[in-house]
């Protein structure tokens, strides 16, 4: 029991940090709430360190095999905690002295703990718990800042969350009923003899439930509304951290379902749907946050392409983990730039950005070109290895779909770059003067630089993941 708790130390630290910020915030003066951000950052750092230590150790399971600590869990822990640290930096300007400041920090940490639980769980019952633990803080985060659009976004997120949560539970119950076991280790063998149609239905329902967390088709409807309506802090969080947990959970699930080629094809089709729908919808957007929201839907498509072939190709798993970490950094860099300029919402308002903020413009260009997959950034290596893995697994059409969709995505990322490079005088309109704070600017520069470093240092990182 004690050893099991130690195995879950990174998750426990995040959870504990969330509790301390929540309670501590109630006993901190209204103007001194920023202290809680330090507590939250300390908790995330401690969790990061604990995660690294556990990663260096041997793979193991905890709590009767319901939770697995292995390379995937380790990578997810590092990605989630580093993302949380960046999000706390982004949040520092936006939620500072807001009436809900410490609650926001608390929800971020709790949501992170839920995502980590999702990434490590190898049991259907724990999967349901992890899904709820990572979803409920999300609903709160989307609505907590009480902006004009946020109640609608929160309600939409909640209703879709409830709907997809029910599907996930239904699927889990179905699989449990067929196998008589909830643990993944026994699931595969037991399901092999079960009726194939029922197994497919159960697996598909769980998968679709997880796609809500990942923000991929068909569970994507809430993503653009939530990114547009919620605070940038919440938007950055919900497009990054839950995806890490959900995608690792998806690979763990399909790894035990019988019929590897069939599931790879199903995931591949969902991947193509996600990247295509996300891209086509993003083309028409004018609000940069909504644009980023749709862009994350398409990015999930690329990630799913890697997730589809984790069983069929040796490269699939490292490709997915590398891509996830690279995507998280790149996406956060883009959101951090948006957070640093809170008054620039529509593309026209970005005119003159290059002259007033050259450093941030560079970060924005790196982030957006990084999302396209321009070398030598991290997403490039992720996409490249994903294409290699899918082709290697015999799904060359998936690699072609990734390439074609990348071309489409170029259109809307370039629109933003072009808007940011345009001189302000040309349009003669007032430029946003809002300041998102030093924290957001720092986060943007750090994350953008990190994407390049990660791409250049892909070799050693790959060896760790492989």
């Amino acid at each position, binding site marked *: 029991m004690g050893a099991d708790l130690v195995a879950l130390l990174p998750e426990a630290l995040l959870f504990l940090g969330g509790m301390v910020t929540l309670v501590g915030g109630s006993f901190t003066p209204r103007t001194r709430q920023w202290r809680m951000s330090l507590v939250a950052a300390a908790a995330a750092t401690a969790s990061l360190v604990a995660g690294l230590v556990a990663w260096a150790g041997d793979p193991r399971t905890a709590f009767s095999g319901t939770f697995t600590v292995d390379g995937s869990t380790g990578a997810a822990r590092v990605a989630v905690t580093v993302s949380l640290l960046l999000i706390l930096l982004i949040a520092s300007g936006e939620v500072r002295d807001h009436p809900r400041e410490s609650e926001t920090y608390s929800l971020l940490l709790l949501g992170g703990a839920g995502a980590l639980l999702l990434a490590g769980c190898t049991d259907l019952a724990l999967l349901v718990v992890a899904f709820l633990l990572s979803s409920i803080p999300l609903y709160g985060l989307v609505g907590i800042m009480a902006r004009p659009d946020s109640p609608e976004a929160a309600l939409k997120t909640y209703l879709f969350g409830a709907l997809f949560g029910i599907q996930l539970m239904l699927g889990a119950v179905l699989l449990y009923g067929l196998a008589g076991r909830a643990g993944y280790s026994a699931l595969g063998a037991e399901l092999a003899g079960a009726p194939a149609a029922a197994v497919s239905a159960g697996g598909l329902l769980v998968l679709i439930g997880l796609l809500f967390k990942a923000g991929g088709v068909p569970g994507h409807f809430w993503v653009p509304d939530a990114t547009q309506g919620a605070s940038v802090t919440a938007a950055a969080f919900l497009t990054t951290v839950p995806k890490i947990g959900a995608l690792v959970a998806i690979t763990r699930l399909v790894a035990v379902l019988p019929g590897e080629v069939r599931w790879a094809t199903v995931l591949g089709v969902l991947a193509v749907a996600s990247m295509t729908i996300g891209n086509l919808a993003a083309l028409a957007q004018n609000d940069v946050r909504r644009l980023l929201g749709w862009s994350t839907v398409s990015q999930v498509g690329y990630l799913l392409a890697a997730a589809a072939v984790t069983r069929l190709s040796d490269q699939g798993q490292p490709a997915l983990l590398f891509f996830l970490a690279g995507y998280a950094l790149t996406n956060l860099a883009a959101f951090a730039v948006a957070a640093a300029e809170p008054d620039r919402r529509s593309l026209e308002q970005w005119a003159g950005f290059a002259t007033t903020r050259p450093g941030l413009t560079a970060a924005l260009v790196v982030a957006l070109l990084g999302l396209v997959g321009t070398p030598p950034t991290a997403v490039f290596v992720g996409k490249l290895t994903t294409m290699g893995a899918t082709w290697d697994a015999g799904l060359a059409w998936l*690699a072609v779909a990734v390439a074609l969709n990348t071309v489409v995505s170029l259109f809307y990322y370039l629109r933003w770059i072009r808007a940011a490079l345009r001189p302000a005088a040309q349009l003669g309109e007032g430029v946003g003067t809002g300041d998102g704070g030093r924290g957001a600017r720092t986060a943007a520069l750090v994350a953008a630089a990190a994407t390049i470093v990660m791409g250049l240092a892909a*070799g050693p990182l*790959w060896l760790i993941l492989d």
Partner: protein
Amino acid sequence: MLSVLVFLPLAVAAVLVHPRVGDALARATFVAVSAVEVALAALAWASYETPEAGALAHEERAPWIPGVGSSYHVGVDGLSLPLVVMTTLVFLACAVFARREQHRPRLQAALFLFLEAVCLGLFVSADLILFFVFFDLSIVAMYFSISGWGHANAARSALKFFLYTFLGSLALLLGFVGLYVASDPHTFDMVELAAHPPLQGHGVAGGLVLAALLLGLAVKTPTFPFHTWLPPAHSDAPAIGSAVLAGVLLKMGTYGFVRIAMPMLPDAWRAWAWVVIAVGIVSVLWGALVAFAQTDLKRMIAYTSVNHMGYVVLAVGAAGVLGDGADDARRVAITGAVTQMVSHGLLTAALFLLAGSMFDRTGNYDLDAYGGLAGTAPRYATLFTVAAFGSLGLPAFSGFIAEFQILAGSIATVPVTAVRARDPHHGGLVPACAAAGVHRTDHRPLGGVHRRHAAGVGAGRPAAHGVGVHRSAAAHAARRDRARCRRTCRPRGAVSRRDGC
């Protein structure tokens, strides 16, 4: 050695980004570093020892992403070294040209040094992923060059350029992944892939991978029908952007044909060589004919680029038809292709820089406006004539050697191309078209009868320098006034005394 060559400009560019570097220092640094690069390239050439077949000289290799069979692997051979030297020369010329740049010179110097590093990196790459990294970065850098320092519809043209060539680069990436997956063990190393070509005997798969590679390279080259991004990109780019785009970036496409597509998919290349030849011939004819119809100097040079790159494509296609048999003709065709690349790089860069210096003084590229320039600007006219005749392929110029070899190689291989051998002077109908195009380039601006504007060009020069804003309407109007003045009351000396013009 090669790493220094590649990363020196990159490091200097990183320093120049810093806002505390002054403009004058930045300009001087740009020239100095470009000169050092030329020296380094010359050194690489001087110490070059012909490697064994399939190997590279000045080779350097370090693991980069060993998990996916990609390494930092650079080296040069007889194919890439001339292109490396040509690249450094073009950039030196651009650096000298850019000494008069008034618009954000520091950032421009940084961007072009970055671009130089990228271009050199591409030509020395011996790993497909490394090649792709540089290939894509060249697109990004050129995009910023056009959108940041271009004129007229620069933003739009830059976007078109980016979308088009990025599409091509993704097709190329797909082809690379295809090569990687088909190789055993999986590798991205060019030398290994050329030594053990994958997909031998897999007709359909080899054909598809080749199609992806050809699409990617054809967009970059560009060949008909993927050339439509080139004229707007050129006409709206700054002069040194055009020079680098035409002189160096276009070579990346044709270099890819010779370096990647041909040796790594020899079977498929042989099977589909006729398509390459057809595309090459159409590009040659199309480029020449459309160039003939242009009135914009830069657009005309751009179309002659399509024409010249068509020759290169034709040559590599012809080399594919030969197969292993007629080795001599094959070698002649390939040598011709490489000579043409280098020759075209130098000549077109020269033409674009000359066109750019004309633009700086007059604010437009309209050929009709420049008649009679030879009288007022004899040195300019001489330089322009040299470059244009070189581009035409007259004997004693590099273009002649290149085109002679290409035609000798391809006519020996594909008798059909002999149809073009009507004009014995130039080897065929095709160069005759080119001749017509360049003929026009020569005559309109330099020998025509529009004395009025020519005088304006000559006289406007110091004024444009002094004001420092070449495109300002006031300066333009002043020049025109002065020109009218000159025309009505000659001699010149009398004018200035009497009217104060």
